[in-house]
């Protein structure tokens, strides 16, 4: 009896949170669609999310591409290794590893900082102050972050894809002794536009998720420094989990008929 009540309470709590996130998303989207848009803030956020994430995302992509090449080489029989390494690296990176790893890295970096920034603004009453100065906090804080992250993540992932494939190329040509021209030809021959496009669509979705979770948890944080800390953790965890779920759903939509 007690157990059933507990499960019921948990489930209701879950539904409540889902409703809150839904309302938050709806309000945020409506503010993304209607003017005025704060272009200066969008630009600054794009710089922060995209440009300053380049080192960490680039490193991740480079080493992932290199490891991938090594693993495939070890796993495939000698004679078709030259084709297998090039094609599996490019498909693996563009379809899955590029967007997912970049998404997770950016989630750690950006969701956390957004949640901390908005959370601090909440507990120091800066968000209340915005309202009293005729500025809607959704328009000024949330919408620019959502737009910037959704736009900039595909660009970031495009760069990550390139670096990742390049990582495979380095291992292939320098360590495994493949012919450089053949490697590039194999890469280009087997790469389909859908591989890249699906990856970039994923990236846009992940960007949206990252900013949404950072803003949602920061905006609703309460209870001082501890509350901000909790908001930061929740933002990163929920963004990461949602990225993995969204990745599954988008893959399902793109590649299974």
């Amino acid at each position, binding site marked *: 009896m007690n157990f059933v009540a507990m499960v019921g309470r948990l489930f209701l709590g879950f539904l409540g949170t889902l409703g809150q996130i839904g309302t938050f998303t709806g309000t945020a989207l409506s503010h993304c669609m209607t003017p005025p848009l704060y272009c200066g803030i969008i630009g600054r956020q794009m710089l922060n999310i995209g440009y300053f994430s380049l080192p960490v995302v680039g490193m991740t992509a480079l080493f992932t591409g290199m490891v991938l090449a090594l693993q495939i080489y070890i796993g495939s029989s000698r004679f078709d290794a030259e084709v297998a390494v090039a094609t599996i690296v490019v498909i693996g990176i563009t379809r899955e590893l590029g967007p997912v790893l970049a998404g997770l890295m950016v989630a750690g970096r950006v969701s956390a900082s957004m949640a901390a920034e908005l959370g601090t603004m909440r507990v120091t009453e*800066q968000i*209340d*102050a915005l*309202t009293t*100065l005729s500025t809607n906090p959704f328009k000024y804080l949330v919408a620019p972050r959502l737009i910037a992250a959704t736009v900039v993540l595909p660009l970031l992932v495009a760069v990550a894809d390139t670096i990742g494939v390049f990582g495979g190329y380095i291992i292939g040509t320098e360590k495994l002794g493949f012919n450089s021209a053949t490697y590039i030809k194999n890469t280009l021959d087997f790469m389909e536009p859908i591989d890249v496009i699906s990856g970039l669509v994923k990236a846009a979705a992940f960007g949206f998720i990252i900013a949404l979770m950072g803003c949602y948890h920061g905006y609703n944080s309460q209870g001082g420094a501890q509350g901000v800390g909790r908001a930061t953790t929740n933002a990163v965890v929920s963004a990461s989990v949602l990225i993995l779920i969204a990745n599954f759903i988008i893959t399902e939509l793109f590649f299974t008929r």
Partner: protein
Amino acid sequence: MTDHAGGPERMSPTPKISLRGLSKRFGPKVVLDNLDLDVMPGESVVVIGGSGTGKSVMLKSILGLLKPESGSIKIDGQEVLGLRGSDRDEVLRKFGMLFQGGALFDSLPVWENVAFGLLASGDISRKDAKVVALENLRSVGLGPEVGELSPAELSGGMQKRVGLARAIATRPEIIFFDEPTTGLDPIMGDVINDLIVECVKTVGATALSITHDMASARKIADRIAMIFGGKIIWIGTVDEIDNSGNPYVDQFIHGRAEGPIQMDLLKP
């Protein structure tokens, strides 16, 4: 419940702010309990009361930052409780607020903080807004060099003064001051008192202030209201407060530990 609770018993113009039966609770904790208060146009009302009695909550409820469970809030006779969207923005434009903790935007330099409301209204260039901002900073005793600093580089009292400059920069009709002189030295405190008086008298603004500082209250108030137990238990002019005959008010203005108000820590 009388219609004029808390207000003078005469046929008067519509109050600028009229609170009726305002109730707000956090979980089981009742903070405001059927609170009534009227503030007339151009009047300066000071609310006094112990720490944690709901003074800040009252201001935030009027601004719509907190949602009271019941009651009515009228601004210029218009019910504002439950207002949304552009109607709410319209009403909010009448207000300026000095937050208890300053609440300065730490991503912006001081002058942009002060100019924020002006820039948000959109009909002023950045250059002009900066001139106005520096003027407002000067009126709270801060030089133009402070304008370029970030709020984190200011002392607590300086932040308070910047908050004040920001609250009055748009020349709002109604200004809320949440403890304007707390954290300031006595001289600067008096400068701020004068500034508030000037805002109210010359600009014709309506002011609702909160303070613990009786000297400040006597200087800036037309009427003083005392909040206790979620209600306004006494309201009267500055002259009346010394002979209020209300033991709560007497205890508060003389700052005595013994009396009808028992601080939690004194309870056995």
